[in-house]
């Protein structure tokens, strides 16, 4: 099997690729030089086995959320697994926002004096969940399922330990553990998906993703 490095797809297995799939990449080698500059700026390859992280950047903007949720404290400092809160990711196509009860599960006792937690407690006592703003979104004619992607990159992935799941999330969501509220730092457009599917031998049937 011939593994080649491409500016646009990272390390890829050429043996499978056909003319039509190779042609654009060849032609885009021309603009590869410019791409090099971008790549230099892009974060280092995440250490997920049997996976080529997708390339592509997006200048996200900061979103005002009802509560400025600090992902960094939870995921980075306290090393809480992403799937602990976003528990639906492995069971559904949507990762889901954790129910308020889950937050309160800890914050009944932890850091109850902090202003953000006070705000949260208010919501809880009002019995109404906070109305979060959506940050990551794909068009509604696109069918993306977290479930399957986690299966491929985490649960069915040889030598991948579940604690490192944040690395996989980072493929599309960026280094959330370094942010407070999430920001969109990947383009999440078709090219982004297609290149990753190509590099990781994902399905290429249009109807897999389009509905």
């Amino acid at each position, binding site marked *: 099997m011939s593994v080649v490095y491409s500016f646009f797809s990272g390390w890829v297995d050429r043996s499978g690729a056909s003319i039509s799939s190779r042609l654009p990449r060849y032609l885009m080698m021309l603009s590869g030089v410019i791409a090099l500059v971008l790549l230099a700026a892009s974060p280092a390859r995440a250490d997920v086995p049997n996976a080529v992280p997708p390339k592509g950047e997006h200048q*996200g*903007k900061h*979103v*005002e959320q009802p509560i400025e949720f600090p992902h960094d404290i939870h995921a980075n400092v306290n090393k809480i697994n992403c799937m602990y809160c976003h528990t*639906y990711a492995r*069971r*559904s*196509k*949507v990762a*889901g*926002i*954790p*129910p*308020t*009860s889950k937050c309160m599960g800890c914050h009944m006792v932890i850091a109850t004096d902090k202003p953000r937690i006070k705000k949260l407690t208010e919501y*809880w006592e009002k*019995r*109404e*969940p*906070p*109305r*979060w*703003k*959506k*940050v*990551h*979104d*794909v*068009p*509604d*004619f696109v069918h993306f399922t977290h479930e399957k992607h986690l299966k491929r990159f985490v649960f069915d992935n040889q030598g991948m330990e579940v604690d490192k799941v944040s690395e996989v999330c980072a493929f599309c969501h960026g280094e959330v553990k370094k942010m407070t509220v999430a*920001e*969109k730092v990947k383009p999440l457009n078709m090219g982004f998906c297609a290149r990753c599917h190509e590099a990781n031998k994902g399905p290429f049937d249009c109807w897999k993703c389009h509905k």
Partner: protein
Amino acid sequence: MSGNNVNRRDFLKILGWGGVGVAVAGCDRPTTVTLEEGKEEVVAYLQPEEYVIPGVGVWFASTCQQCPAGCAVHGRVREGRVLKMEGNPDSPINYGKLCQMGQAGLQGHYNPDRLKKPLLRKGGTLTEVSWEEAMTQLDQKVGPASGLNGERFAWFTGTVSGHQSVLLSAHLAAVGSKNHFVHEVINDAVARAVNQDMLGEAAPRYLLDQARVVLSFGADFVGTGASPVYFANTYAKFRTATPRGVLIQVEPKMTLTGGSADLWVAIRPGTEGVLALGIAKHLVSQGVDASGLPESLRTLIAGHDADKVSKITGVPPDRIARIAALLKDRSPSLVLAGASAEGHAHGYQSVAAIMLLNVLLGNVGKTIVPSGASQFPQMEAKAGNTRDLLAFADAADKKALDVVFFHGANPVYTAPAALGLAEKIKSIPFKVAFSCFPDETAMSADLVLPILSAHEDWGTHMGVYQPEQKSISIQQPLMEPLYPDTKGFGDLVLTMLKARKAAGFEGFEDYYAYLKSAFAALPDSVKGDAVSDEDFWGKTLQKGIVKVTTVGGSLSAKAVEINLPEFKEDSARPYHLVPSARLGMWDGRHANLPWLQEAPDQISKVVWTSWVEVHPQTAAKLGVKEGDFIKVASEHGAVEAQVYIYKGVHPDVIAVPMGQGHEEYGRYAKGRGVNPLKVLAPVADAKTGELALYATRVTAAHVGRRELLVKLMGNETQLGRKMVATVKADVFNRTEGGKDVA
């Protein structure tokens, strides 16, 4: 699924609009959905159940309220919205299937024209008021303090069953009234009467799948019968049995069932009884034993020789012979009577003559078996009829009513104009409508109370037609109420009962609590393996139905006297009007559902409007082509609609479908098509007092206008394309008989 109501309700809350907005594929223009960060809201649950997963639909059991059949359904709920209806596989009535009306129940629930606030008539016009005002009004007029005379109070409803029915009777008792008018246009009341007299049971079970030949006199059992989905399934069994069952349909206008008949016979309306006797004569002459019958009947039968019958009915002699032969050879057989046989002044006699064939052929006990009663008679369906409509009109005429409560019926629409019901109702001092929609009756009421839709409310139901395994099916909310200012019907009745201090209803804070306790009170025989009441309740909500045991039930065939009148032509009004009912529009209650408006009529394939079915011969006589507007006039009024020409009607018949011609009832129904019921002559069946729907004579005339008749089929024939290929039944029996292929 647990019975914890609070959390379940919580789940039924509508989540953030993520994914709800109209997402347009390949949207090149801004739509309601944006990809930009922070533009859409997404809301998590507060404290969800384990089974609740966003993006994954959950199915809840409930009951379809689109027609009296009471099919059990599953509703798919996602992000707090009910998205799709499917049949409940556990139900012995519809075993996981559903008809188009059941599918379209959703559009009743989400209908843009639903009533959102109570309406009170102030100075002649209905104006929105608060619930407080509405309830005080109700209390003043009907409350304990109102000094209302119970005799002068009445409920006017459609078919009711289950605990709803229990509550209603309780309320009537509390008020001290006996006036409960139960009205359905599409009913089998006459047949019930005949069965009661001939077989000793009003609604026996018909074993369609046991019969090898079915002779149906206008019984549209797969269309507008007592339980369309149930009979559709038994029909499939009947067709795939060995030898394959034969269906003969005798009617003046081809119904949906007639469309699938092996032999469809057009008959002159009102002569069904004569044909039945003619067939009987033929059978007897073929050696069928008629000794069981009383002398009078035997002479009556003997008097109907083929030629005479043929002359009266318009059915050629050899066809009568053919029918008789099939009935005799393919035993067991089943003979059914339907609307077109019932709907005449002598309907009872015709149906009796038809049922006589069953007696003669010994079908009673074979294909017609006792149904018996369920162990909860008080919960069984009170089948509607048209006798009550006439009775109500009469009472209103006599000024015998002060207060009327309407629910689930729309008499102002369904009553013939000749009854003058609209005006008579106006004369009633206080009229209250419990309704979801601004239908004609609601709009003519003094107080309109907006109730929850069938998908938001609690309830229990029993279908009018109960198969061998009788069952109560539960109706539970599939969604939190769309509009805060709507209340459950059960809750309202319960409130009134509590106001009346009715015994046994004090403790319950709402209908839900009442139902729950009622289920707890059920005997253990129906509770099955449930360990506790809570557990039973949970299981019930999960399964959606409770199977109950049958008690009693026996049939004893005894003949009744039959005296059919002479068939009379009416030279002034040469044509018979057939107000045909159709699966979909039903009696017009579904005219506000766009899906059903756009679903073509099964036979004529016309959409969105009314049409007049005319035989080509008649059309030639009248000089009309398809699309011509034709005026159909009885002595009580006239309707104008477009002509649809086909041979599925008797040349003497002008058929106009029910369902359209609403004056109110929302944007999809209002001012669309015509309502044939309006022009009916107020003739009643002599014996049962049922309104004779098919007894109206009309004239027809071309009015000169012509428009395109909006319908599906471009060319109505296959042009030899072998789109629908056909084989003979004996080939079918030979190749597939007795084989269960899949």
